């Protein structure tokens, strides 16, 4: 009987770690702590040149404030739990993946091609199947934007296999 009680207690405490308030708070505190560590690596201004406070003092204070407020939010969430969020659908992960595709393609191949690929992925996986619309969204519209920025604002886009053709 005791064992059963213990098991239940263990499950209860374990479930605490899977609550969104715990995960979100832990992530914020972890990132803030890493950034706080970096503030200790900032150069220190010699006292004779120092005006007011050291450059690291203000960010340190902010990070400590963020950590303290996050802990407070977490403890409040124990009393007033956050609402349960629905599981994210596949379309979200595909959109997120399309960002990675965009970054990779625009970094190593071509900026314009990156936009075109993202547009076609997003549009297709969000339900568009008509080829003409896919072409409008992924080629014609980005081309209009590209030419508009290039001619009106005099913008020079980063070099790439397609952009180089445009610039000759």
């Amino acid at each position, binding site marked *: 009987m005791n064992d059963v009680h213990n098991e239940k207690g263990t499950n209860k405490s374990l479930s605490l770690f899977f609550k969104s308030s715990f995960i979100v708070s832990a992530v914020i505190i972890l990132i803030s702590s890493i950034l706080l560590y970096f503030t200790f690596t900032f150069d220190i201004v010699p006292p004779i040149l120092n005006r007011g406070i050291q450059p690291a003092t203000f960010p340190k204070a902010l990070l400590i404030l963020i950590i303290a407020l996050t802990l*407070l939010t977490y403890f409040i969430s124990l009393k007033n739990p956050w609402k349960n969020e629905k599981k994210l659908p596949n379309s979200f992960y595909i959109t997120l993946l399309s960002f990675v595709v965009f970054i990779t393609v625009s970094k190593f191949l071509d900026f314009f091609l990156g936009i075109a690929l993202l547009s076609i992925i997003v549009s297709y996986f969000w339900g568009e199947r008509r080829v003409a619309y896919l072409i409008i969204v992924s080629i014609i519209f980005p081309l209009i934007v590209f030419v508009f920025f290039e001619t009106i604002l005099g913008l020079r886009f980063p070099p790439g296999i397609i952009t180089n053709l445009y610039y000759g």
Partner: protein
Amino acid sequence: MENLGLIFAPLFSYKLLIVLFFGTIFGLILGVLPGLGPTTGGALILPFTMTLDPLSAIVLLTAIYCAGTYGGAITAILINTPGTPAAAATCLDGYPLAQKGEAGRALGMATVSSVIGGIASVIVLIFFAPLLANLAYEFGQPEYFALAIFGLTMLASIGEGSPIKNLIAGAFGILISTVGKDFMTSIDRFTFGINELTEGIGFIPVVVGLFAISEMLTQSTLINQIFNRVALKAVKLPSIDDYKKTWKTIIRSSGIGSFIGVLPAEGGTVASLIGYAEAKRWSKKPEDFGKGSIEGIAGAEAANNAATGGAMVPTLALGIPGSATTAVILTGLIIHGVRPGPDLFREQPEFLYGIFGSMLIANILFFVLGFFGAKIFARITLVPNKLLWPMIFAVSVCGTYSLNQSIIDVWLMLLFGVIGFFMRRYGFSVVPVIIGLILGELVEGTLRQSLVIFDGNWLMFLQRPIALTFFVLSLIALSFPLIKRKKKNDKV
């Protein structure tokens, strides 16, 4: 007061009138599209303003602000989805009234009360901003620090979200502003050896990421959502009976909206919620609220549009944004080399009064365009997200890249998009991040300069009466949500 005649100057400039016309149309489109709105739209249009002179650029942004705030009501009434967060309270009665077959009447009241609220707030702006600017001559570094702290503590009461989460988001915004070379000592902070970061993180990648890209990710989770649209035949001007029922509500909400707009960091969303609640409190038929009350629509719409002029007061007079959209306008001013503050009122009155006049004209323009074109603007919501958002992505990427021609800005935009999505998912508002980012440099700069003046003695802040007043107001702003919660618990 001798400059009041300058208000009519935009009427005689065909260039400004064209800019106003397109700004109003663009603002209406942005307001109508759920998830976009004047803040995102303003940020997206900012790079294009580089081709304009400073006055035309700011006139364009303010026209988008005024029209975008109204545009949200069209979607709120017809599809029960607020086009902008400020129109959330309009859904409560606008959609039920539209369902009863009175969509035209609901939109007519929304249009009229928006225009009255908008014009009232511009009048507040015209008379109150110069007074505040004069007062700002008394401000030194410690006073500006205290004022910025007051602005940040006001974040605690933004919207209905958790005050602590808002403060965390605000502190995050300030933290972003510390990235790059320290302005006093030129020491690198959080640059991680990336050269592009030594100049700091720009406003545009953050705002486009937090608003446009995070919204794109949010929309990716809603692709199967179906909206129930209510058909609209035509917008109807309110009847005499409707005017009799609502004129007091419109005047009250215009006052509430203008006042809330003036408070740093508070904007149309808070104004509309309070305007709506007050309309219900003073109504002879509070039981009709939520079931299609015409007073509910008037209360919310007059208040959120009244906040536009109010929010411009601290933005122009002090350089402290009154809302997220005015933070974008403030960035536009800075990009165009205009420094907001008391000197602007003395040195460039024609510029300021040009903005005031343009805001008045924008309100009249969106009345005409809203009245005759609401049906057409409502059709814009028929553009499917699967086509709309890839296009917005292309404009976001090119717009963000264009300001500094930096690919790092584009990566940062995407990063902030993902951060913004998760922030919103877990109940953190993204607006405080924007306000924090804008105020960050002011907070740190004035703090450090004040400490130099005070020779490191922090207690000297308390010997400055204006600074002390702002600190007391900050304490009140921080305790307000606690009092509100206690009252709510007591009621329960």
